[in-house]
């Protein structure tokens, strides 16, 4: 198994966190993983993105330039990265704010109304968790259980109150694909 994922959006949308969750979950499942952020000048005001590779074998390039899957959280990211999905690959579109349709017809496209679903669940900062759930379910790269465990490990002490709403977002995302 070799999964190469790109996650892109505005800074503040939890884009780097989506990538880290995939990497941490893959690591917990005993796979080889890399996570590499884009840290250039584009992070200020433009798009933020990160590359994640999950594999059963030693990982070569950590920067993903041809992706099996891409998650786009905003329109500039769709424009910038649509062409980087390999034919037959998967594209996850945050359709709450991306109203344009991708031009590609040789890839599988998932429209995830992530923001609306998160708000419906009372977690208006949980759009990234919704699309992460959709990604995990559709690709099988990591299990939903691994993601739930991560959420529980991330929010502890007085932040433990966020566990339930984040798990609810991941679960809802998984049910959308």
């Amino acid at each position, binding site marked *: 198994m070799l999964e190469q994922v790109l996650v892109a959006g505005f800074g503040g949308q939890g884009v780097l966190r989506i990538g880290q969750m995939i990497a941490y979950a893959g690591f917990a499942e005993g796979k080889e993983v890399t*996570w*590499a*952020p884009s840290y250039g000048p584009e992070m200020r005001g433009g798009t933020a993105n990160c590359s994640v590779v999950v594999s059963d074998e030693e990982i070569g*390039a950590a*920067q993903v330039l041809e992706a099996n899957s891409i998650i786009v959280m905003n329109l500039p990211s769709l424009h910038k990265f649509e062409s980087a999905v390999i034919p037959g690959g998967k594209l996850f579109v945050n359709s709450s704010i991306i109203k344009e349709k991708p031009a590609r017809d040789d890839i599988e496209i998932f429209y995830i109304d992530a923001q609306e679903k998160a708000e419906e669940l009372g977690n208006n900062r949980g759009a990234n968790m919704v699309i992460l759930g959709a990604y995990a379910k559709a690709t099988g790269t990591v299990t939903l259980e691994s993601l739930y465990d991560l959420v529980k490990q991330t929010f502890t002490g007085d932040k433990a109150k966020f566990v339930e709403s984040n798990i609810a977002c991941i679960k809802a995302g998984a049910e959308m694909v």
Partner: protein
Amino acid sequence: MAKKLMKGNEALAAAAIAAGATHFFGYPITPQSELIEYMAREMPKAGRCFLQAESEVAASYMVYGAGGAGARVITSTSSPGLALKQEGLTYMVAAQIPAVVIDVSRGGPGLGNILPQQSDYFMCTRGGGNGDYFHPCFAPASVQECADLVVEAFDVADKYRMPVLILADGLIGQMMEPVEIPEVTKKPIDKPWAADGGHVKRGEHNRINAMVLPADGLEELNHVIQAKLADYAANYVRYEAIGIEDADIVLVAYGTPSRACKNVLKKAQADGLKFGLIRPISLYPFPKEAFDKINPNCKAVISVEQSCGQMIEDVRLSVLGKFPVKFFGRTGGNPIIPEAVYNYAKEVLGGKA
């Protein structure tokens, strides 16, 4: 210690603390900032010294002073910062002071940009300051190697009383991978030469000095430095070689581009082509002996670098005209795309490039 996910910058710092670093002096610069941040947070907790200097030049002389007094000392920076530290480095070579110096390199020349690039190769491998010297230089290609090489660098520095450089590019510093920070139980060697007030009897003194006025004295120091480097070269040169004995094309790459080259090797294997890879882990001294093991019928050796072509000079000196030496590079912080390297290598194989 159990494996965990860490950035290369954090692993370099954590391994330095595990290796018993007693002093860190530095000045912040992207893309190595996580390293100095980690040190600022963790060194005081471990009862060690963290000091943010007023400049890179000041930091390198703090390293000189602490190292001369026998401390296990480390500094880190990125490309333009290393240029500023070169004066301190050549003084440390002359005064025979051990230290570990980390360069998480960025785009140049000048202030350049903060993206990963490998254009510090000459500065890191040729003795970047004045005078007749080199110093050991390691180049990690993974987060685990960042940790392992820092531990080794401290021991090498102490053994040979030299600054040892670790050249990691910006992406190695920024990326996260599983890593196990080594548990270091070995005690650092004694330093009877140190100007620490504890090693000499009343009336005697240890001198730490970068100036030798008599011609014969300075010649002798130069011979001492060269002899140390020769001994080091005989014992510590490190590299990884994959499939070079029967390869028709051999790629040579270190750091981030070497990882792209591993993807290229897989593509070639899937297409039934015989490609090999030499990945220098030591950049100085360069692992020349690896090139003696290349298939005598190899068609070409390709140096793959995120620069305009610097390591290629060492590749040519190692190949010694036995094979054509070609170059594939990107600069400005642009990544090496495996597909592009593969297509170029196929052109070379077909005699078209």
